[in-house]
Structures are given as structure tokens and as C-alpha cells.
């Protein structure tokens, strides 16, 4: 995923000299290619995220296309107000890349973990929120972000969970991707985003072979008609995300469903708590009940009660 990100960034920047990459002293090896291919378009703004975002707004006003990179615990969380006032208020074409979202920095603790970023950014007017699920979706999201000419937050989570797509998918802006078809009789739909797309595919394939699986790389704006259609034809829906169940993908789907096509929705995600323990990524997923077995059990319980 990170290679796809770097490749897209370098390709876009070589074609458009107005693209600038601003980093808050993060992304050491990630930007080796960018720094050698586009050295004049690289700015290390130092460990000073608030100023970096304000500057990005100024640079965008002066006609540049800034990509602002940081860990998602800092970009956007530390700088929500700068994003709101300096950038989104005027629909400035600044693209925020929040890397390492969710529990990627599992050993480092709460400061570097990020499970509230979608909720915080989704409520900001004029700001789009992307959450790609594999390297092909990263490429699509990067291209869409560049073409959108508006403010975008692109969330990158655990990057080595494998591919779901076989090649770069064709998509309309805001659409959900169906990554697994199902049977009309079963009518169980999984809707997942980011790192949890692979998990959703694994669970559906093993335990619910007739269920459909949808990927949501564009959390905002989202194709509301498509979501409504999925809800209308489903007996039940399971949303899965490496993010709080408050304000993220599950909330997005539940909001649309409750208004246009009510259906029971089970939101799998972080249950409004911080990590208590240190450990591997897999360990942290277990702590939060986001490993495959725990999710299977939760879904089973939900469906029995259905």
C-alpha cells in the first residue's frame, strides 16, 4: 500500500510541478523516491504540524497543490482546527495523508494510535474522507484526491494485509465497490473499509459464503443511493472498521439507513475505549475484539438475535 502511495505521489508530482509534499518530519524511507525524483517539491516543515497545515493553506492560496503527510494521530487529529478554518473553509485543494491509522503503532500506545480521525474529519464541511482498503484503492484514491481540487483527508491504515482487488478498479467518485457477490436468498451484506476489508472478505468467505461484501474507499462523500439500495435489499448489515464505532463508517451507513431504508446494522469497530496494553498489531486487534474469531462470534450473536 505504501509503495502504491509513493508511486502515485511521485507520478503526480512529476507531471505537476505545483504539487508540494509537506511532512512533519515523518516518513523517512517512504519518501526516498520522492526526494530523489522531485527534490524541489519536498518540504520538511519540522515537528510543527499546526504551522505546517496553516502554511499548506497559504501555499494552496498561492496556487500550489500541497500534500500534507503525517501520522493520522497528528494529521488530522492534532490539527483539526487548522484543517477546518485555514483549509476546508475555503475548499482549498490540500490533501492530507494520515498514515498508520488504527492500531498500526501497536507497541507505542495511545499517542500514536488513531481511531477517532474519521469521526473528527467527517463533520468538517468541504472536506472529503477517503479510506482505501488495498494498494489498488490507494492508487484510485490518490488520483481522485488530486482530480477533486478540493480538501481531502486520505486515511492509510495497516498496509500489508494483502490485496482484495486484482487490478485497479474502475469507479465513480463516492461509489462503494462490491468485492464479493452473494446470493439474494441470504441477504447479509458486509460493508468494510481500510484494513478491515481483508477481514470482512475472510469472514464472509469462510462463514457466510452467500453474503455480499462491499468496500468503502470514499466515506465522504458517499453514494447515498447505493447505500440505500444495499440496505433495502439486505436482511442485515455488518459494518467493519479499525476505528471507533462512533462517527465512522458504521455511523455513516446507519445514518443513511435509518433515514431511507431501515435495516438492522451491526457496527464492528473500537468500542469507545483506548488500548490498555502493549503488543503486536494482531494482539491489539484481539484486545479490541477486532480479530477474525472475535468478530465472527459477535456477528453470530447479532444474527441469532435477529
Amino acid at each position: 500500500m505504501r509503495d502504491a502511495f509513493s508511486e502515485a505521489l511521485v507520478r503526480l508530482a512529476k507531471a505537476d510541478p505545483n504539487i508540494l509534499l509537506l511532512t512533519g518530519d515523518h516518513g523517512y524511507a517512504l519518501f526516498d523516491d520522492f526526494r530523489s525524483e522531485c527534490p524541489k517539491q519536498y518540504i520538511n516543515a519540522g515537528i510543527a504540524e499546526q504551522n505546517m497545515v496553516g502554511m499548506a493553506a497559504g501555499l494552496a492560496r498561492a496556487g500550489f497543490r500541497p500534500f500534507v503527510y503525517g501520522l493520522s494521530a497528528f494529521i488530522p487529529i492534532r490539527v483539526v482546527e487548522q484543517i477546518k478554518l485555514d483549509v476546508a473553509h475555503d475548499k482549498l485543494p490540500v490533501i492530507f495523508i494520515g498514515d498508520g491509522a488504527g492500531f498500526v503503532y501497536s507497541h507505542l500506545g495511545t499517542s500514536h494510535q488513531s481511531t477517532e480521525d474519521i469521526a473528527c474529519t467527517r463533520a468538517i464541511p468541504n472536506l472529503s474522507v477517503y479510506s482505501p482498503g488495498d494498494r489498488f484503492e490507494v492508487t484510485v484514491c490518490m488520483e481522485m484526491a488530486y482530480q477533486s481540487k478540493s480538501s481531502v483527508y486520505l486515511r492509510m491504515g495497516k498496509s500489508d494485509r494483502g490485496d482484495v482487488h486484482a487490478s485497479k478498479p474502475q469507479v465513480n467518485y463516492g461509489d462503494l465497490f462490491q468485492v464479493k457477490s452473494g446470493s439474494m436468498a441470504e441477504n447479509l451484506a458486509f460493508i468494510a473499509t481500510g484494513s478491515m476489508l481483508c477481514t470482512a472478505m475472510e469472514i464472509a468467505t469462510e462463514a457466510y459464503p452467500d453474503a455480499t461484501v462491499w468496500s468503502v474507499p470514499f466515506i465522504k462523500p458517499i453514494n447515498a443511493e447505493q447505500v440505500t439500495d444495499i440496505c433495502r435489499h439486505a436482511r442485515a448489515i455488518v459494518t467493519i472498521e479499525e476505528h471507533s464505532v462512533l462517527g465512522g463508517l458504521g455511523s455513516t451507513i446507519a445514518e443513511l439507513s435509518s433515514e431511507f431504508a431501515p435495516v438492522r446494522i451491526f457496527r464492528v469497530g473500537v468500542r469507545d475505549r483506548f488500548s490498555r496494553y502493549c503488543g503486536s498489531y494482531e494482539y491489539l486487534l484481539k484486545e479490541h475484539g477486532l480479530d477474525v474469531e472475535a468478530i465472527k462470534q459477535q456477528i453470530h450473536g447479532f444474527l441469532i438475535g435477529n
Partner: protein
Amino acid sequence: MFNAKTLRKTVLEMAYAGSTVHIGCAFSIIELLAVLYRKHLRYPGNDPLAANRDYLVLSKGHGVMAQYACLRELGWLKDDAFSGYFSDGSELKGLSDSLVNGLEVTSGSLGHGFSVGVGLAMGAKLRGTDQKTYALVGDGEINEGPIWEGALFAAHHDLENFMVIVDENGFQAMGSTDEVLKLGSVQSKFESFGFVAMTIDGHDETAIDDAITNLTESKSKSPKALIAKTIKGKGVPFMEHDNIWHYTRLNAETYAMALRAITEGIK
């Protein structure tokens, strides 16, 4: 144009019409804005959105009435915007908003405009234009951390086209800057960050003009800092140095007294 007395009168009239606060905060920057607009800021074609304009970023957004008064003189704002200030559905807000042509940023939450200004200056430098960026900040505002993040960046990248102007009126919302969070020497602070800095009387238009000219014509590659010693509420004796005019609204009596003071130049 940009007569200080006229500008203060405009501020007073709109503050009374809208029953608004932040009068003292606007009065302290009248001469600074007057000199900038009269002598230094370039708006080709008198166009507030001209691509090659200089940038004036009002980072202390609560001083915005002073800037509105200047935009009226430029013909960018019409008289009814002033008589209808704060009326329902009107355009001009109580803090700077970039939706108004001529205002570069949406400020009011402090410590934002400075960084946007650094970005504008960096953009001009990357493009190789001769555009200047002036960021006007309050002395209370420089409590904010991003100011100093941006100061490091501006100096590191030799943003000689960037000038911060500090309205050092000695007060912030809850009291004097000495009482709230001691600043010490603002000039030395910016100098230690790598700026070329000067301190002047912020109500002496000749001194302001000379200082801005000296700083912008300086051969130094460093960013510039102009520390303007000002008086909060300047121009109306009963408002001067009285921080209550950060919050107080005018009534018929105080409006008449203030108007007389400005018109007659009462000391």
C-alpha cells in the same frame, strides 16, 4: 485617503450600529493599516484578488473593523455594509472571514493567520515573484505556539518577503500581557528566532512608514518583524489603556462622547 481620524470614525459608527465589541482592539491598529494600505500594499488594478497582489493577513481577526474601514476607502465595501453591521443576513462578521474580498484568512481563533502568511510568502518565493506578505498579530496572540513554529520555519527558509507586525498594545482578553503571560522583549524574541526586528511607535505614521520601508529594502535574507508599541483604544481618551473596551458595547452616551473625541481630536 486612509486618514486615521476617518477610519476611527468608521469603526465607531459600525460598532455602534452593530452594538459590537472589540473596539479597542481595532483602534490600536488604525495607523498601521493606514500606512500599509496607503504606501506599501500593492493591489494591481485595485483588485483585492489580483494574482500578484501583496498579502495582508490579519491574524488578530478581532481587529477586523479597522480593516473593514480601510476596505471602504478602497471602494471594496459599500456604505450599507457599515450601517447594517451585524444585521441578520449581512456579510461582515465580527471576526475576519476570507469570504470577504480583501480579507485573506478566516481568523479569530488566534495563531492561524501567521502560518498561512508564512505559506503565502513561501509560495511567492518558490514562484520567484516580488510579492510581500505582512502578517498582523496581536501581542496576546503570540501566546499561541504556532506563531513560534512558523517563526522557526520563516527564518530557516530565509523568507525575506515575510514581515510580522506585532500590535503590542500590552493587553489581552483578561488583562495586561504582563499579568497573564509575560512576554519580555518581543523584539529580542523574534531576533533570537532569526528575524530582523525593529520597535517603533505604532501610532506615528512617519515612523511606521520609515520602518516598513527600511525593513523591506533591507539586504538581509531574513524575515522581518516590526514591533509596534500601541495603545489599546487609541484615539478616544476614555477607552485608552482600558481593557474593558475589549468587551464593552457603546450606548448613545458613550458613542456621542467617543465620536466627539475623535472628531475634535481631544487628547
